[in-house]
């Protein structure tokens, strides 16, 4: 019983979080079909939407082709769409009794939420790598320096963890799969279209531009555009982008840790 008391708190926290993350990733490893099916959607965006708009030339993209301009947006989108339904898995675990079991353990609620966010981050990296491969096949010219690649990985990890934790918060509030599906659908479209993913903010009406500027996806896309593309516009403000993403993630983790115990009631 006293076993746990001797281990330093931070070490305990890390081992609890990584155990939770490890379980999720092991399941993904055993059944990766979801990753493959989720790669289909970005492929369609490139092939259909991208190719059509590439020919119109109505969207100002500077030195970039439209396909190149949208590539970071589609990467961010695929991270968003995969992560935003993360909460469904948690609701499933609640219906099974798995949530109840981890909540009666002495692990801190924050470590449980951080574990989920870590797993989502790693998942996002795999998802992102698939999108990058597709984009390469579409002749998008990438930065190949280590700093750029590390930056892309960090941004994708952060973004995926952020939207998955957001999803977890929603799951804690709605608690049933039916309600969650409805809300998930309603949220993804505005998050995607009210961002700079597939057109620049400068094209938007003023009100939509304001919405986009408080949308975390905008900061993710902004960072990715600078870190991913060989001929990126120099406009990105990386410290701001990463700062905003990290702060929102921290706030969401705090909120989710508060709400998580409610799933067992």
């Amino acid at each position, binding site marked *: 019983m006293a*076993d*746990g008391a001797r281990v330093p708190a931070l070490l*305990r926290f890390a081992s609890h979080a990584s155990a939770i993350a490890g379980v999720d990733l092991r*399941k993904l490893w055993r059944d990766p079909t979801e990753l493959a099916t989720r790669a289909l959607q970005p492929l369609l965006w490139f092939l259909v939407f991208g190719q059509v708009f590439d020919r119109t030339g109505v969207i100002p993209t500077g030195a970039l082709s439209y396909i190149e301009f949208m590539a970071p947006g589609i990467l961010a989108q695929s991270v968003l769409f995969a992560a935003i339904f993360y909460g469904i898995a948690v609701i499933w675990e609640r219906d*099974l009794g798995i949530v109840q079991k981890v909540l009666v353990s*002495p692990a801190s609620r924050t470590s449980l939420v951080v574990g989920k966010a870590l797993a989502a981050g790693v998942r996002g990296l795999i998802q992102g790598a698939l999108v990058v491969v597709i984009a390469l096949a579409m002749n998008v010219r990438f930065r190949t320096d280590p700093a750029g690649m590390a930056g892309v990985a960090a941004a994708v990890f952060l973004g995926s963890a952020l939207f998955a934790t957001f999803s977890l918060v929603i799951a804690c509030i709605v608690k049933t799969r039916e309600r969650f599906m409805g809300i998930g659908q309603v949220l993804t479209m505005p998050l995607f279209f009210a961002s700079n993913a597939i057109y620049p903010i400068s094209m938007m009406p003023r009100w939509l531009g304001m919405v986009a500027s408080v949308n975390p996806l905008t900061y993710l896309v902004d960072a990715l555009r600078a870190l991913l593309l060989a001929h990126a516009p120099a406009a990105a403000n990386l410290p701001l982008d990463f700062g905003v993403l990290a702060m929102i993630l921290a706030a969401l983790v705090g909120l989710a840790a508060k709400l998580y115990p409610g799933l067992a009631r």
Partner: protein
Amino acid sequence: MADPVTPAITTVDLTRQFDTLTAVNRLTLSIEAGSIFGLLGPNGAGKSTTIKMLTTLLPPSSGGAQVAGFDIVREPTRVRRAIGYVPQMVSADGALTGVENMTLSAVLYDLPKRVRAGRITDALAFMDLADAAHRLVRTYSGGMVRRLEIAQALLHQPAVLFLDEPTIGLDPIARHAVWGRLKESRRQFATTILMTTHDMEEADVLCDRLGIMYRGQIAASGSPAELKAHVGAGASLDDVFRAVAGRAIVDEDAGTFQDISRRRRTASRLG
């Protein structure tokens, strides 16, 4: 482990309200360390709500309780460290192997790395699961899943074990196997067990003392023999149940739609 002289669980006026419904109403209870205590009662009597409060999943509206010497409201982490819990639902992860499920519990309960593997092997062997240790749990039978869940809950050698309908959906042979393991773990580790059940045979065979809950309170309590004698010569626990909670056997108290669907889901998953 809790000192055998002091009670392992005490509640004083423990109350939980959901809007206008009082699920548990000023429950005062004392459960001796090392004993097996069965909570009986019709659906909606407050059994599960009581367990949720004692396992710190649900804060009480008023009143309080101590589990293994710790206050459920002020010292929830200490309570969690001292208890094991097997929910009514299937809480083992079907997509993981038996050992992987056990390892997750071992880490969450801070079992030191050097004893982890040994304890997991021992616990699986104790529950007759050694051969299935590396199989995915979704290939287990219902009885095996339940035994795995109990093994997980006992891994950190808790002073108090909570079981919410441990043998729901199991066939008679699997039920007897679970009972045997529970008795043995009480004998070896002096674990105090608080369980809910609808199964009168289970209550009779397994429990030292019973409390029959009705509308959020203990309506009758005592050893199975005492309760039966109180109703009359030759009475069964079914008779006791009917005498105490007889009025409850009408539709409105038979549990909500959600209760029933959850119960059937659990039963079908284990069966």
